[in-house]
């Protein structure tokens, strides 16, 4: 798990630098999914960084496209492109856009409007199932995103069609754009909701690589799998944790240095 910790730290450092340099938002959303990404790209996904179109690759879709810096960072770490490419993040006409872009090597699908990733992933999983392909589709979603009705259409569809080759990971940090989930639209009892939609549901510590890995490995039988990952928004930088403010704010020089110092101490 040591190397996954290291990968997570690298993702966090790159994400902070990208956001700082470009003055972009959503750093806390990126830090929230970092350990899920390092687990996926470190131990779970089948891919070839030198051949992004490898037919047998697992398909990964980031539905919460605003957290894209963490994905760009992990793709650089595992070799889809040079790390220096990250420096063009947020520049005029850059392919590294502030919401995830399919123009970037290794990215399957552009998102930005919420509620699009799961239905798209459903189409891929359905294709794989009907054509007896062995690859798996993973969709990483946010919790606030579950307000979108399109996801519930997709939940209904996936269990009906027994898409056991589809896994969605819900980044459950309990904060959304203006305030907490509880004060916006309560999702609880989330496990029961998803179970009642016919999904295999498993909870995991969203920053615990071991726990996440176990959740990824668990068999869902003939059902699609939902991993509810309990996370902390802004995880890894003390002053960004569990605060709505850092959904928007970007770190100034002092804040960046302090954040990097905290990560360096790990």
């Amino acid at each position: 798990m040591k190397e996954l910790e290291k990968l997570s730290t690298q993702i966090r450092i790159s994400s902070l630098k990208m956001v700082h340099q470009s003055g972009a938002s959503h750093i806390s959303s990126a830090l929230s999914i970092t350990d899920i990404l390092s687990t996926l790209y470190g131990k779970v996904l089948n891919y070839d960084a030198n051949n992004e179109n490898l037919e047998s690759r697992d398909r990964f879709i980031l539905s919460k496209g605003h957290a894209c810096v963490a994905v760009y960072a992990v793709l650089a770490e595992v070799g889809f492109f040079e790390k220096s490419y990250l420096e063009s993040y947020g520049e005029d006409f850059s392919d590294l856009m502030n919401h995830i872009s399919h123009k970037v090597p290794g990215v399957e699908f552009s998102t930005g409007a919420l509620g699009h990733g799961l239905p798209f992933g459903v189409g891929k999983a359905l294709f794989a199932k009907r054509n007896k392909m062995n690859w798996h589709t993973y969709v990483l979603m946010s919790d606030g995103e579950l307000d979108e009705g399109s996801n519930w259409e997709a939940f209904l569809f996936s269990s009906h069609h027994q898409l056991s080759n589809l896994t969605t990971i819900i980044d459950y940090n309990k904060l959304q754009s203006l305030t907490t989930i509880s004060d916006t639209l309560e999702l609880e009892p989330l496990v029961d909701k998803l179970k009642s939609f016919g999904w295999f549901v498993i909870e995991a510590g969203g920053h615990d690589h071991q726990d996440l890995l176990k959740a990824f490995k668990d068999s869902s039988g003939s059902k699609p799998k939902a991993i509810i990952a309990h996370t902390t928004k802004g995880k890894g930088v003390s002053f960004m944790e569990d605060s709505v403010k850092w959904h928007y704010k970007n770190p100034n020089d002092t804040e960046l240095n302090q954040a990097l110092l905290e990560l360096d101490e790990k």
Partner: protein
Amino acid sequence: MRNRFITKLIDLAHHNDKLILVVGDLGYNVVEPFADLFPERFLNAGVSEQNMMGLAAGLASEGMHVFVYSIANFPLFRCAEQIRNDVDYHNLPVTIVSVGGGLAYGALGYSHHALQDYALIRTLPNMLIASPGDPQEVEGCLDFLNENPQPSYLRLGKAGEKEYHSKIPKPKPGLWQTVKESPIGSSAPTLITTGAVLQSVMEWSKHPKLKDFQIKSLPIWGLASKKNQIEQVMSTEGIVITVEDHLFDAGFGSWMKESLGGNAEAESRLRHIALTSEVFGLVGSQEALNEKGGISLESVLKILS
């Protein structure tokens, strides 16, 4: 048209194993033969247009040419963002098929009136509109889309439309098709139509004052196929009247006007017949509603007077 659509789709599916039909719990008594022949390439997505369009994009991203079938506005406005972001932006081969273009479902109320569908699709950069005027053009449009899979919208009438082309046309984006020629040397006006409203236009053309009119159709058009319109407008002898069963605003006639790029001479030839907002919220037969909204022989005669 819908029957010719399904017969032709089955024919194409026999030769193209990438072709798949997804329906939004609609198509009773139309889609069953396809479902029976190709169960692995048929899917009823249920009454959930957002998921349906999203998964269609997902299937298309794996190399399938997905035909999404529903009626009137249902596969368009509810899932407009999925069409814009998932299908059009990613340039994926999804053909949205809508039966009941214009006021074909006139009696069913405003929810079922497709009056703004061109407007929505027209602004999407990769999208083609295929709006055939008779069953032969349905076949021609499907041939084109099958050979050129891309984001597209196929707007059909309903059933029972007459055939006006003696053979299957080979439509291309932006290119006018001849349906009826003027006598040699005539400088009579041209009626240029898109979609099933061709049926009405052909009926009007029996009127003595319209008997020499040249009738053209433009079955395939869109944002990226505006070129060639000036040449085609200028190649006619008389005025050119666009006819559509859609609002003029952001519809076919206004697309044609925009295509002329401000060329004063070409624009001076152009006239338009399109639906007015008077039909909003009214119910009735397609004929009655079209007439109320200005799609009528009287409108042509008024232009001539």
